[in-house]
């Protein structure tokens, strides 16, 4: 699953560790999501979306 997480994070000038803090996961998990190696669960996707004041669809894109 593609996502705009890295770009959004850069725009807000927050680090992976800070995003991990806010969402209650590890920095490695944020890194894996950004690289598209791990798809977050729906609750985590909602948390991320809320943090950026966006909808899930605006951040994550289904590749199918």
């Amino acid at each position, binding site marked *: 699953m593609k996502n705009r997480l890295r770009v959004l994070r850069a725009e807000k000038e927050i680090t992976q*560790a*800070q995003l*991990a*803090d*806010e*969402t*209650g*996961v*590890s920095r*490695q*998990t944020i*890194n*894996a999501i950004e690289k598209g*190696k*791990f798809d*977050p*669960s729906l609750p*985590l996707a909602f948390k991320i979306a809320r943090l950026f004041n966006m909808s899930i669809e605006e951040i994550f894109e289904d590749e199918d």
Partner: protein
Amino acid sequence: MKNQNDTLAARCKRNTIHLGIWTGAWVLTLALVAFGHKFLWNEDTTISAIMIFINLAVGVGMIIANIKHLNGLDEMHRKIHLEAMGVTLGVTLITGLGYSMLDITNVISYDAEISYLVMIMGITYMFAVLINNFRYK
């Protein structure tokens, strides 16, 4: 801002320590049964039965601590461990039965020992977790 991650890190640390303590206690009670039977209580079967019961009870504690440890991880690390457990189960099943067949068919001259299977389980799990950690990096 730091509260949640401190909670995750603190929870992981606390659960890992608990798991370590329970695992250590389980190994200790197991060793006590294995060696105590002969060297400490002169093969008294009543004492051995009580010690085995204690070992089983501590084993249940270790399982609960392991479940708590897994539930305390974040979702990606839970997936890493789930996949590692799947690999370990498969490897243990096929090597265990294969090893047993080697014994039954007398291909090997000695009896199949369960301790080898436990070693294979541990090594497989360790490598599977390491490989999965690398995959999700």
